[in-house]
């Protein structure tokens, strides 16, 4: 049940040199590479079936509609949604979360209500709630992140105190893009449900890595992006429970989401059409379908195990470097395949620029998590994030590159 190293040949972009060195792509938290089957699915759509969807009655239009709706059905099975109409296609996680904030939000929140998030949210699962609080008079609170550098986690006692019946919405990440912490989504949703709060899960980092069953998790909304799970850019999903979606006002308006229109007003279709105004991103939905297939063919438990093993290995190897701070959960705790670290004397931007010359692609910065960085007393970290095609040998290359950098700046 482990991944075959041969799968690297499925990803054309991996087969290149950077600065004369073989590419070691460790920026998967930002976006993953795409297998040939995804690239081809998009091209094939344009070569054979390209047409607008829904309103067409000719052959190409019926094929395009079938392809687009099959992608929706496939997304539903991928996360075990109860029905395809619970899948709304968006541009990505950020738009999915904004959709909830702009549609569900004002219709359901009043002054005095509480929106709960956590201190480790990505800006995309934080700023929309700040804006919603401003708009509705609700208050935004955060579950604190506590612990030492390499033993960080959500504070369970604080969570229990914060989760009062005033909380109408609880938004949290399934997998922190900065810390690699994997939250217990089912347990958090159960607690939220007990006080009647609606739950929004940011699954941007977990969707391509962990098995996800929305019915087991018991969430109300779940957001993810295709490009972080071997799929195309420009496509993502908002999962929402059908009963909720069908009570929500529209988000964007225009062609395709309306029932009857007069010069005076309009009525809306049910979900998912209600939330998909205009021509959708048909080709990339079809590309996303191929990505779902690819990942399920590898097997998500195997992917999760692979990522976890690389994450633990990288933590262990990096921890031997002088002056390093590694941020994340305790060794052995649930974690994703990423590791965030900082050196005392070398800034993350210099680290990334140097590593690039060794062919190693890393990310340095605040990872769209400025407030958490500030809380941890850092302005930035370097992040190595792994995916199905990464190997233990690549971690050796990473560590060697880090040693060289430390030497250069010490020299």
């Amino acid at each position: 049940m482990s991944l075959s190293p041969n799968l690297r040949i499925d990803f054309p972009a991996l087969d290149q040199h950077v600065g004369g060195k073989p590419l070691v792509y460790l920026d998967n938290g930002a976006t993953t590479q795409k297998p040939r089957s995804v690239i081809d699915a998009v091209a094939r759509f344009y070569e054979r079936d390209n047409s607008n969807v829904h309103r067409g009655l000719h052959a190409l239009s019926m094929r395009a509609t079938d392809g687009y709706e099959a992608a929706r059905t496939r997304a539903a099975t991928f996360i075990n949604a109860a029905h395809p109409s619970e899948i709304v296609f968006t541009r990505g996680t950020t738009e999915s979360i904004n959709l909830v904030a702009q549609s569900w939000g004002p219709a359901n929140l009043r002054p005095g209500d509480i929106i709960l998030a956590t201190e480790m949210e990505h800006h995309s699962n934080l700023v929309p709630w700040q804006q919603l609080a401003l708009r509705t008079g609700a208050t935004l609170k955060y579950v604190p992140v506590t612990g030492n550098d390499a033993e960080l986690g959500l504070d369970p006692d604080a969570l229990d105190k914060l989760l009062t019946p005033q909380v109408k919405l609880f938004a949290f990440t399934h997998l922190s893009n900065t810390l690699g912490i994997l939250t217990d989504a089912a347990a958090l949703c159960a607690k939220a449900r007990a006080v009647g709060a609606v739950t929004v899960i940011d699954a941007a980092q977990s969707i391509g890595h962990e098995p996800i069953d929305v019915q087991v998790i018991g969430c109300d909304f779940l957001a993810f992006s295709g490009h972080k799970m071997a799929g195309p850019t420009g496509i993502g999903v908002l999962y929402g429970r059908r009963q909720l979606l069908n009570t929500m006002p529209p988000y964007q308006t225009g062609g395709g989401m309306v029932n009857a229109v007069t010069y005076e007003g309009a009525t809306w279709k049910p979900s998912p059409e209600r939330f998909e105004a205009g021509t959708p991103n048909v080709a990339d939905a079809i590309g996303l379908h191929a990505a779902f297939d690819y990942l399920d063919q590898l097997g998500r438990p195997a992917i999760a195990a692979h990522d976890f093993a690389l994450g633990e290995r990288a933590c262990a190897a990096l921890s031997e470097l002088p002056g390093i701070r590694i941020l994340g959960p305790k060794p052995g705790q649930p974690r994703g395949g990423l590791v965030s670290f900082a050196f005392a004397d070398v800034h993350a931007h210099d680290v990334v620029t140097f590593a690039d010359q060794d062919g190693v692609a890393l990310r340095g910065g605040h990872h769209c998590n400025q407030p958490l960085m500030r809380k941890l007393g850092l302005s930035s970290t370097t992040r190595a994030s792994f995916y199905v095609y990464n190997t233990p040998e690549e971690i050796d290359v990473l560590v060697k590159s880090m040693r060289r950098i430390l030497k250069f700046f010490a020299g």
Partner: protein
Amino acid sequence: MSDLTDLYQSVILDHNKRPRNRGKPPIANRVATGDNPSCGDNCTVYLHLTDEGRVDAIGFEGSGCAISQASTSLMTTQVKGKTAAEAEALFNEFKQIVTSGQAPEEISDLAAFAGVHAFPARIKCATLGWHAALEALKQPPSV
């Protein structure tokens, strides 16, 4: 590795390791902070402008990458003794260097930053301290 030694020239490494004029100078009547929120970098420049309008004391605080630290350190050595107009002219030459990669003969240490032009994302690191200094020069007297 040629690109990288172009970027991290010895002048830069030296200023990064041993920044000049780090800290608040004993006398100062102007202050401004430059921020690069998308990097998390920041830089506060303090300076003293004489009645004749010349910088006779300057210092900086803040954190950032080697490029921003070294460029701010070098900036302080260059701006000292200059008027606001002269400092601005110097910054324009510096900006020219980091965006074009070309440095005129007579320009000495600033030329060390020519390598930055190959790393467009780092240009704002190189100019962070300069922006803070020019901003400080525009402030009304304080402290």
